[in-house]
Structures are given as structure tokens and as C-alpha cells.
């Protein structure tokens, strides 16, 4: 719990130096195996900053936080785990970073991710895969795998990730941690290196639901620098909400597509909800198998556009500079981007090109509307829609990476929330053979506090929180 650390720092029970030393020791012990960080800051600098922040105060005064390397941090290398940006140092902070700094948080480092957030296992990173602290031969999920691993390995209590199609929730589920994809428009994307703008949000990641709530309350809010943020500010930090009377709809079609052992864990969780007084009903999401292609069509289109700017001129990989811009850009981009990124850019360009725009892009947007309408209908009957976060256990390294469609299929449970802008939270539901399984709760648009509040209540029922992998 971050509150424990804050208390200790404030009262002097632990000095900033001790706090930071202990953290770095832990990192030193396991990081070679885990590979959670792309950039770890200099220890002395961090100690100094923690000292300053403990003095100057704030809701996170002196707390160390790990930041996904897709979020711009002024003066600290931000790579998106790509060769293309391997030496890029932003001259500005993302809005969420400004907010965190204002509350006294201290960035310890930038965490590993799938290259440009394109992937579900953190295996497409230029800096090598991150491994799951619960089982080093397996992935921690992606694309915010590094942040999740940093939590699960016991480095930090707080982290930020980003979620375009499940990139916070998948790693949370695979590492027995908590992650929230916020309602679209409640957290500023200014400074988030864009993959798919209409789908993604920066979101909090933590080891328990209270900390998740604290983080969310700090990073959320309208930003004049982001036209897609809404008039929103949390009045209070999220607080515990008992689930008695809560109407839960279990997505049986999603359940059916999940592994038997995963289903088992979720059934367990459902029983617990029921014991606590929630009403359980089995329903269907509908359109599930269409959501996935629609999601990827939209995401790849936006990606092809967002990644057009990487040409080596103003920043980034620029090994080649002789010849016309056509040659120079083609070579820099051909070499600076990894395989999956190139695939998605090419496909995105294809989808938006003349002749195919209507067939793919427009149709995908229509599917999006169908899904949203469907969800609106479901939320008239239910407060929360429940399903496994992921259909499978954490895959082994190399298991899905060479088969794109198989890899995409992992996202089937999570893309719905991105397509329809609603909030979705993953919390630990159980283990199978020491491998974490997460349960996903989706709520109405702007019901983030409700989801977090339910989670605060239920984590005490499951007793699955503040878990550190025994690496």
C-alpha cells in the first residue's frame, strides 16, 4: 500500500535513502531476469529527488513510480521500446507526468513495452522481452508488460500504463496486479506517444485497488491541451463500495471462448460476488467475434497515420540521409521499425487507401457503433459486465509471437471496452499452477469510481492483493 510508504517517509520511519536503496537492491537482484525497465534513473539523483519531494509534500510525496515508456517524460529517454526512438529525449512532460510531479511522485524509470504498444506480450520490444516475475519462461502480457512486471517483482507500488486494446488489463491479469483502462476522455493523452488515438487511454496500475484509485484521481481530469478530454474531475478519491445489490452480467459468450482453467477461476470469483449479495445473471456480449477485426482495422489505420511522423528529421533513427526524402524515409523507417510495427503500418495504409476505405474502415466503424449500442442496452440491465480479462493463461515466450492472428485473438475480451470508450478494470481472481488469472469488470461510461470501489471491497474478500512474485 502506498499509504504505508508515505506514512513511513513522512514520519521518518524510513529515510528517502533507505527507501530508494532498498528499491534499487531489489531491482538489481532480479532485473536481469525480468527486464522490466528500458531506462532506470541514476540512484543518487532519485534519492535527492525523493528527499526534496518528501519535504515539499503532496499526496504522493516521495513515492517512486514506474512509467511506461510510451509516456513523455522531460529529460528522461522515452523510446516506446523501439529502435526508432532509442535515443529520443522529450523536451516536455506529458500532462499526467506534470500532475504526478505536482503531487510529489518521483519517476524511478521507464518501463518496457511492446514496440509502439503494438502487441499483447511485451515481446515485440526492441530491448528484449520482459518476463513474467511469476514464471520467467512466460510473458507478463502487454503492451504495458514492463509496468506490470515492476509491480509484481516488488520494485514499486505504483505504475502507469496505456491501454489501446487491453494493454493495461492483460499485463495486470497475467501478473496478479490491478489495472484500469479509464473511461475515454477522463485522462489526458497529451504526451502519450500515440498508437491509436480514438481507442487509447493512459491508466493507473497498482498492487491493490486503493492505490489504483489514488493514482486515477491524480492523473484524471480535463486538459485544455487535449481536445478529446471531457469536462471531468473526480470529486473524491474512489472509496469502498459493497457489492450487495449490484447487478452483474456475466458475459457467457466470452467465457465460452476462454480456457477451462481460466473459466474455473472466474466461476470462483462469481461465487464470491454472489455470496456478498450481488445478483448474478448470465448474458451475452454479442458481436464478440466481429469486435476483434473491427478493433484491429481501426487501430491499424490510426497507427499508420500516427507513425507517419517518424522520418528521422526532427528526432529519431536517422542512419540514412543521402538522396531524396522518398529514399531516406523509406530506409530509416524500414530499419527503425520492428516487424510487427511495419506490418500494422502497411495494413493501416492499405485500409485507408482509395478503394478500400469504405470496405474496411467505414465498415469497422459501423461495427463499433453496433457494439456500443449493444453495450448501452446491456447497461440498462446491469451495473457491471464481468468476464475473464484474458482467455488464456500467460503464454510462454515465443508461443504467440510468430502467429499474428493468434496473437490478436488474445485481445478478444478486452477490445470491447476500447471500442466503446467505457471503463474496464482487471483485478486478480486466482491462480492456476502459480500462474495468475484476472477477472475483468466493465462499467458504464464514467463509472470508473464504481469499478474501483467494488474492487476495493472485493479484494478483501479474495485476499488477493499486494502480491509480490517470489522471484
Amino acid at each position: 500500500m502506498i499509504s504505508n510508504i508515505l506514512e513511513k517517509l513522512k514520519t521518518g520511519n524510513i529515510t528517502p535513502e533507505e527507501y530508494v536503496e532498498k528499491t534499487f537492491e531489489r531491482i538489481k537482484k532480479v532485473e536481469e531476469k525480468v527486464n522490466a525497465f528500458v531506462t532506470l534513473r541514476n540512484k543518487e539523483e532519485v534519492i535527492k529527488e525523493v528527499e526534496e519531494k518528501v519535504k515539499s509534500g503532496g499526496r504522493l510525496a516521495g513515492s517512486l513510480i514506474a512509467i511506461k515508456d510510451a509516456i513523455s517524460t522531460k529529460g528522461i529517454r522515452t523510446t516506446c521500446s523501439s529502435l526508432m526512438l532509442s535515443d529520443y529525449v522529450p523536451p516536455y512532460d506529458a500532462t499526467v507526468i506534470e500532475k504526478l510531479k505536482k503531487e510529489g511522485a518521483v519517476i524511478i524509470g521507464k518501463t518496457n513495452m511492446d514496440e509502439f504498444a503494438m502487441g499483447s506480450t511485451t515481446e515485440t520490444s526492441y530491448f528484449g522481452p520482459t518476463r513474467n516475475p511469476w514464471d520467467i519462461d512466460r510473458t507478463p502480457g502487454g503492451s504495458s508488460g514492463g509496468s506490470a512486471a515492476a509491480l509484481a517483482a516488488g520494485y514499486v507500488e505504483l505504475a502507469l500504463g496505456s491501454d489501446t486494446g487491453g494493454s493495461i488489463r492483460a499485463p495486470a491479469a497475467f501478473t496478479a496486479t490491478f489495472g484500469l483502462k479509464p473511461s475515454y476522455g477522463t485522462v489526458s493523452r497529451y504526451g502519450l506517444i500515440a498508437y491509436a488515438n480514438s481507442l487509447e487511454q493512459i491508466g493507473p496500475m497498482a498492487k491493490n485497488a486503493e492505490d489504483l484509485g489514488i493514482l486515477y484521481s491524480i492523473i484524471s481530469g480535463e486538459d485544455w491541451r487535449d481536445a478529446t478530454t471531457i469536462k471531468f474531475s473526480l470529486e473524491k478519491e474512489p472509496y469502498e463500495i459493497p457489492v450487495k445489490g449490484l447487478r452483474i452480467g456475466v458475459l457467457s459468450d466470452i467465457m465460452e471462448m476462454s480456457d477451462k482453467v481460466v473459466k474455473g477461476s472466474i466461476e470462483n470469483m462469481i461465487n464470491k460476488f454472489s455470496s456478498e449479495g450481488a445478483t448474478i445473471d448470465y448474458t451475452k456480449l454479442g458481436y464478440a467475434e466481429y469486435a476483434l477485426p473491427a478493433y484491429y482495422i481501426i487501430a491499424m489505420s490510426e497507427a499508420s497515420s500516427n507513425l507517419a511522423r517518424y522520418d528521422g528529421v526532427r528526432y529519431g533513427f536517422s542512419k540514412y540521409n543521402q538522396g531524396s526524402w522518398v529514399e531516406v524515409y523509406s530506409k530509416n523507417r524500414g530499419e527503425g521499425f520492428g516487424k510487427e510495427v511495419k506490418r500494422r503500418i502497411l495494413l493501416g495504409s492499405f485500409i485507408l487507401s482509395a478503394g478500400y476505405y469504405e470496405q474496411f474502415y467505414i465498415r469497422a466503424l459501423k461495427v463499433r457503433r453496433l457494439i456500443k449500442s449493444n453495450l448501452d442496452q446491456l447497461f440498462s440491465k446491469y451495473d457491471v459486465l464481468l468476464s475473464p480479462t484474458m482467455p488464456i493463461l500467460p503464454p510462454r515466450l515465443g508461443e504467440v509471437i510468430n502467429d499474428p492472428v493468434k496473437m490478436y485473438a488474445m485481445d478478444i475480451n478486452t477490445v470491447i471496452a476500447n471500442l466503446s470508450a467505457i471503463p474496464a478494470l482487471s483485478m486478480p481472481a486466482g491462480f492456476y499452477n502459480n500462474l495468475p488469472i484476472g477477472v475483468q469488470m466493465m462499467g458504464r461510461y464514467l463509472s470508473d469510481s464504481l469499478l474501483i470501489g467494488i474492487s476495493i471491497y472485493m479484494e478483501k474478500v479474495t485476499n488477493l492483493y499486494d502480491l509480490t512474485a517470489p522471484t
Partner: protein
Amino acid sequence: MKVIVDDNLIKRLERLALIEIKDVEKEDLKKDLNEIIEFFNKIDELDLSKTEPLFHPIESGKLRNNVESPSLNREEALSNVKRKENGYIIGPSTVE
């Protein structure tokens, strides 16, 4: 429209996206793209004739005041530029 990913399409996409695809990459790429487009075609099964596309999850955007904020100083702005000259950023030739 049935899509076949052949060398012509790859060439066209290379030009659209300005990404050079080396010969060794081409075969794998064609295979992957074909598979993925097949996967996309799933949405053809739906009757979407009466549905409107959903472009923006947020229905209404916002505007900014016409008030100046400080710009980056030149050093910051050019801090990641590899090639510069007299304060200018050097870009490639614009003659094809």
C-alpha cells in the same frame, strides 16, 4: 472486393507508407498480410446497411483560447535533431 496481397500491392504499400521492405522480408510479409486481411473480412458477414459509422467516441470536442504560451527555446526544440545548420533543421532533398 477480394484482396490478394501480391508483389504489386506490397510495392504500392511501400510507397504509401514509405517503408522499405527488403526482399528477404517479402514472402513472410505477403503471407502475414493475406492472413490478416482474411481475418478482417469477418466483418463482411454483418449487414451494416442501416448502421452509421462511429467516428469519435467523444461527441463534442473543444476549442482553445487565442492566448500565447511560451514556445520551446531553440535548444530544446532541436535537442533531438541529428543534423542542423545555423539554427535550421537539415532535411533530405526534395527532388525525387
